[in-house]
């Protein structure tokens, strides 16, 4: 990437406004939305863009998130491109329809701002809202920065529409949603060349006369899940190829995972979302201290890119999973997932599951350096550890 392309078209944007610009460039036909902190700036920006005529879409404001997702499903089933956004309680209220959207194979793109669920009330970054939707059949991506959020929204439509599965992209409340940074905004021509109009082969219309989701017998229902499994199986590679295409176009490539300074690493932090930013800094500092540390960032959480994770950790002696979420009675969700992904691997890393940043608690670079020193040579911890 030359210096010119790094500064061309840079705008100072917070994560949510970056998402809204990505949505605008993707040209969705229908956008049902309900306000919720800290998602609302996406909603506000979309209204603003629509009012200025830059976004031409049907902005629907239903009476709840449940209704927003219901509208999204029906709109998508008619063969048009649909976007919606929410956070925390809103996503949880959508839960019933998240299953429905995936089962009906409607390629909706949803942006979720990760926030603590009640009770007690809190408005802090925590990923349990979306992680607890992991079995609904949605593809899940996690974003570290406003730039990645914008880029991922556009890629998400291509992924969703190709495999006919909905995609949920997540970024952390406030750390990403409200923090500003320079963002390269692609041109409409660039996006149009990357993302063709959505033209499904099957859709609801008076001509086709088909019906959605009639009750089925056991075998046919079972088949619906096998077909979803088949679609999910191709998603890892697709996220990679779509991310590479985007890289060719913009100079910013993406994949299911990202490795930062993992070559020859004796210790690798595994995490996702905004935590990756702090980890990068900690990795640099640790390398300065003579500890060969690295970061394995998970961008695609569902389907979990197991083969890529195993390959990335093949010769790593120690891996520390940082979970900004807590599944009561079990521990960190990423830790569970990684244990399962590495099961049966020969010479697996000594794995440590750390509950770091649950409820939005800030995890500093200094804390990460201390943890690295503490766990570098320690025996694997089977149980999750709460980080103070």
């Amino acid at each position, binding site marked *: 990437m030359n210096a010119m392309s790094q500064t061309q078209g840079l705008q100072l944007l917070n994560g949510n406004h970056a998402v809204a610009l990505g949505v605008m460039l993707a040209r969705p036909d229908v956008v049902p939305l309900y306000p919720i902190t800290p998602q609302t700036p996406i909603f506000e920006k979309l209204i603003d863009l629509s009012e200025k005529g830059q976004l031409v879409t049907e902005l629907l404001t239903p*009476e*709840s998130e449940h209704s927003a997702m219901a509208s999204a499903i029906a709109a998508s089933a008619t063969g048009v491109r649909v976007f919606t956004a929410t956070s925390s309680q809103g996503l949880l209220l959508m839960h019933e329809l998240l299953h429905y959207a995936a089962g009906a194979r409607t390629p909706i793109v949803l942006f979720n701002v990760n926030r603590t669920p009640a009770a007690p009330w809190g408005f802090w970054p925590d990923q349990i809202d979306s992680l607890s939707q992991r079995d609904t059949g949605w593809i899940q991506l996690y974003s570290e920065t406003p730039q990645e959020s914008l880029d991922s929204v556009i890629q998400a439509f291509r992924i969703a529409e190709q495999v006919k599965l909905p995609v949920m992209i997540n970024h952390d409340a406030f750390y990403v949603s409200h923090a500003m940074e320079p963002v390269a905004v692609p041109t409409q021509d660039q996006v149009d060349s990357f993302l063709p109009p959505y033209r499904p082969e099957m859709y609801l219309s008076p001509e086709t006369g088909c019906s959605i989701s009639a009750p089925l017998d056991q075998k046919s229902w079972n088949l619906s899940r096998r077909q979803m499994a088949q679609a999910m199986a191709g998603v890892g590679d697709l996220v990679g190829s779509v991310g590479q295409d985007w890289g060719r176009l913009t100079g910013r490539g993406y994949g299911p995972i990202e490795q930062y300074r993992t070559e020859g690493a004796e210790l690798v932090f595994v995490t996702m979302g905004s935590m990756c930013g702090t980890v990068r800094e900690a990795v640099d500092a640790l390398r300065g201290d003579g500890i060969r540390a690295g970061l394995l960032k998970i961008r695609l959480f569902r389907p979990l890119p197991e083969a890529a994770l195993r390959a990335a950790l093949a010769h790593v002696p120690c891996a520390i999973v940082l979970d900004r979420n807590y599944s009561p009675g079990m521990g960190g969700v990423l830790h569970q997932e990684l244990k399962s992904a590495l099961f049966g691997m020969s010479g697996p890393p000594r794995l440590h599951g750390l509950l770091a940043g649950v409820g939005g608690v800030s995890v500093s670079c200094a804390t990460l350096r201390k943890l690295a020193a503490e766990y570098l040579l320690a025996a694997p911890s089977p149980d999750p550890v709460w980080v103070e």
Partner: protein
Amino acid sequence: MNAPKFKASDYKSDIDPIWCPGCGDFHVLMSITKALAELGRAPKDIAVVSGIGCSSRIPAYTNCYGFHGVHGRSLALSAGLKVARPDLTVLVMSGDGDGFSIGGNHFLHACRRNVDMTYVVMDNRVYGMTKGQPSPTTEPDWDSALSPGGTGLSPFHPLVIALASGANFVAREFSGNIKASTRTLVEAVNHPGFSFVEILSPCVTFRPDEKEWKNTVHAAQVPETDDPARAARRIMTDDGMNTGILYRGNRAPYRAQVSDKVGDIAPLEAAFEV
């Protein structure tokens, strides 16, 4: 006459509200605490339940038992609370976004179930907490950054819906009229069954035009009635700014099957005895 047992301040917590200066909700809080003092029940015998929004912050500002529930579900929570603890006075506090949009369906069923509680909706015709989206009671031509040109949608008419759905007590007050609001709240709590009080409570931040409400609200010209048909005819001529009690019905409140003896919680206490 005996001195009153409680003062309004006995129902006020030491937490300072974070509402915007000039918000009508401050007045609603005053009316609520004054009404509770007049009713004379101890704070521990009162539960204040809410959903989400500016109005729903109110439980923490009282000294009663508080339950800050989820968006739109305050009535469903309150029904569960009241059937388990019929001895408690249950005040359900909501706003127009919380109560009529995401929680609109619960409103219909709470009216028809007629559980003995008081539902207060602080109506400012806007979503204040999320910074100014139009709500179900917003005028269709309200032009703002978040509703350019207005929504064009017919507003929800809370009193008509309450009446049609079977609420046993229906009233409207204005937050700035603390005396009248207090009196109506006392009547609402004392009346058996489901009582609904809409309190027009201006949002000075996102609806500065509502500062004018103090000049446009007016006491209803007709007295209250216990006849739903008469109440329905009267509400048809309502300009949305009429205040006072519209309807006080005689329908028997919902009776819980197991423990609905007001004041008698002995069976419950026995069940929870360690």
